[in-house]
């Protein structure tokens, strides 16, 4: 296989911070090359340099042996570099074909040849597989996984030589990940180099040929994946041994029943029977659309149950939910959990009502308790890493001392080091007598953390599992196979 990309001695500084120094990366044609590292290790800067968003201060980029310089993202795209960002860059109100050919519609004298455009899109889709949507569908109607297909079709249509994927599975449910794997393999079979950025080590072992690890802006190593174990990778990333991924389970019997639902339902859920006890972590598994987020929101009062019995009294609004002792750490912290342009302190006080809850000393204590590092209350939240943002969300809930904390994907977009500390925190809160309900699409996390697991399917409870079930057992219930 020929060499596709070679980046040599790449260095980049932003005002006040050196983000990359002397990083080398080379990727062969048809290779799936994983790029990993903790948040702040420099992965996204390196990717943006390749994408033409940033210019490197030092170093050179060669594509298929030719030196290139990208002054604008368009230059990079024309040279055959396609980036699939975590936040997909599609126009929801336009069709699939219109998105694929955005900015370079086939046209004669300014008139778009719609048919040619749709046909070309259909052909590219056919090459990739069978899909339940077509070139004329509006992107707004598609699931995240389908939208990724559109992005990949777009990359193929510009004849990309390198496709960079930034955390492509972050928003996918377990069964959709399979489709993505298949697409990645297809790209590599066509001789396209794939640069795959992910926090999920399992995916890297599944897909990658080689892996490059970055730490603090420098390259640690590039190693063929079959010479590594998970422990090796983690050690390379965090620079220490992380022997036990998950904190030990509950040491004592679960306490009083803090929440009891029987026959709970609304337009998305039905027949929910559930009990949560003080001190336990109950995991919620299910495929995307099974009603996991809806369950959390129903308990919390954001999308209330319309029927069924519940103790404490069924909340009809968020205000009632909070008053009844519920807290919800939402799936999307940026739009649902935090006011990004406000300070850590303001965010931590978002739900606090009484003067006692709002006192400055207490806020500082809470920030320390959630291990926010450094615990600087005046910093704007948008400047924090994903892990630290999540800790601020937690601090926000701790001001009102909830009895039941609901976590929806608590470690999404959080790096390995911060993940472990969030896991410890969650366990600690349970030990302190809270009841915890935790939704996660990452099965190892769900299995590692939960004292027992509830599996949802089509808005109903498909079954209960004790601590430490096999992944197969969970999937079996979730998929109903």
């Amino acid at each position, binding site marked *: 296989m020929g060499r596709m990309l070679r980046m040599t001695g790449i260095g980049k500084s932003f005002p006040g911070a050196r983000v990359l120094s002397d990083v080398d990366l080379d990727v062969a044609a048809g290779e799936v090359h994983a790029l990993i590292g903790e948040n702040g290790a420099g992965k996204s800067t390196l990717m943006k340099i390749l994408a033409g968003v940033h210019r490197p201060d030092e170093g050179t980029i060669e594509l298929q042996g030719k030196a290139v310089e990208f002054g604008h*993202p*368009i230059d990079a*795209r024309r040279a055959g570099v396609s980036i699939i960002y975590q936040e997909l*860059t*599609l*126009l*929801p*109100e*336009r*069709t699939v074909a*219109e998105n694929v050919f*955005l*900015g*370079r*519609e086939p*046209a004669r004298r*300014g*008139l*778009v040849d*719609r048919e040619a455009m*749709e046909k070309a899109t*259909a*052909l590219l*889709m*056919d090459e990739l*597989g*069978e*899909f*339940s*949507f*077509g*070139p*004329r*569908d*509006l992107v*707004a*109607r598609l699931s995240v996984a389908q939208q990724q297909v559109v992005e990949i079709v777009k990359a193929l249509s510009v004849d990309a030589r390198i496709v960079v994927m930034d955390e492509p599975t972050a928003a996918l449910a377990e069964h959709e990940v399979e489709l993505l794997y298949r697409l990645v393999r297809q790209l590599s079979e066509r001789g396209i180099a794939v640069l795959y950025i992910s926090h999920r080590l399992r995916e890297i072992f599944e897909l990658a040929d080689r892996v490059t690890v970055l730490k603090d802006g420098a390259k640690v190593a590039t190693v063929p994946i079959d010479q590594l174990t998970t422990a090796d990778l983690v050690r390379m990333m965090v620079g220490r041994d992380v022997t036990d991924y998950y904190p030990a389970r509950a040491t004592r019997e679960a306490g009083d029943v803090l929440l009891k639902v029987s026959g709970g339902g609304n337009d998305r859920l039905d027949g929910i029977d559930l009990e949560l006890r003080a001190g336990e972590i109950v995991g919620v598994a299910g495929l995307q659309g099974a009603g996991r987020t809806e369950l959390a929101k129903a308990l919390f009062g954001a999308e209330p149950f319309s029927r069924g019995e519940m103790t404490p009294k069924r909340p009809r609004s968020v205000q009632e939910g909070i008053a009844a002792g519920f807290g919800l750490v939402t799936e999307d912290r940026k739009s649902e959990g935090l006011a990004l342009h406000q300070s850590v302190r303001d965010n931590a006080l978002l739900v606090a009502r009484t003067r006692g809850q709002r006192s400055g000393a207490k806020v500082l204590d809470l920030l320390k308790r959630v291990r926010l590092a450094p615990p600087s209350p005046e910093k704007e939240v948008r400047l924090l890493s994903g892990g630290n943002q999540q800790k601020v969300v937690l601090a926000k809930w701790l001001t009102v001392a909830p009895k039941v904390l609901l976590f929806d994907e608590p470690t999404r977009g959080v790096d390995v080091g911060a993940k472990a500390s969030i896991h410890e925190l969650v366990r600690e809160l349970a030990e302190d007598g809270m009841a915890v309900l935790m939704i996660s699409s990452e099965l190892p996390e769900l299995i590692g953390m939960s004292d027992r697991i509830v599996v949802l399917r089509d808005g109903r409870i498909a079954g209960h599992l004790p601590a430490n079930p096999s992944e197969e057992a969970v999937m079996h219930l979730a998929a109903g196979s």
Partner: protein
Amino acid sequence: MTQHIATLWAKRPTPRGLAVDSPARPVFLALGLMLVVGWLLFTIDGGQFFSQANIVGIQQRSAALGIVAVGQTLAILAGSLDLSVAFLISLSSLIAAETMAEYGVLAGIGATLVVSAVVGLVNGLVITRLKVHAFIATLGVALIIKGVLESRYDGPAGHVPESFQRIGFDRIGPVPVSALLWLAIAVAAWFLLSRTTLGYRIFAVGGDPEVARLSGVRTDRVIVTTHVLCSLAAGAAGLLLAARLGAGAPTVGTDGGYDLESVAAVVLGGTALAGGRGGVAGTVGGVLLLAVLDSSFNQLEINSFAKDVVRGVVLVAALAVYARRRYAR
């Protein structure tokens, strides 16, 4: 496998135009309903809704607003907005009437369109180069035009030749020439939006300027172009009003409330105020809806305050319906 996609592809039309889930559909349903209501009201009142006089009246009333609103649709779809159209219409009517009186009809039309295009260019450049929000940029330009109007004119001026006045009053059967002009401009805008690369890029820029930019669309150029087109539409409306009045008038644009009314017609037609979604068909429906509402009020001789209250309610209700529809998706 090819067949699989091909069948899907053939079966599903893009949800635009008047398809079930097109954004313009509710306004046409509302228009249909309003026609029935109008007809009932007229009948109860002893009038005839579908009389030639009333049908012609509705079209006459709509034409000027309709032309401006088509231009406004382009600006709004691109994620922008033009609040200077009302004063520009007044200015255009004066330039048209004064130039026509001196140099003839063609010179008048030419001068009006050139000045309009320049105003649009200024709007577009202030928004894209100086990075001033469209709301403020076009409001500023509106104030500048207002100042010019107030210092130079204190009443109607110029004279429009008979030959050109006919554009304002002639009709072919029940269809006034002014309505045909509106139709032509609307069809041209529809063609632009649905068939040309510029149209595709207007949707892209309005949908997400960053996505458009990263796809190689020159977003600034698109925004400037839509503002030039929007101002040209306002200029055309000014010409039409000058033809009706036989002269230019410094308050004809603001009296008609063409700035906010055109925005209202656009959003009534289902175009998103934030841009990127909607189209001309909905705007035409929105304009007709407002006109039918007006004609019913006139027939019933309702006072103008009550009229405004009802129009306000209709506008807010329409947007609430759109918000629900989007939420349901």
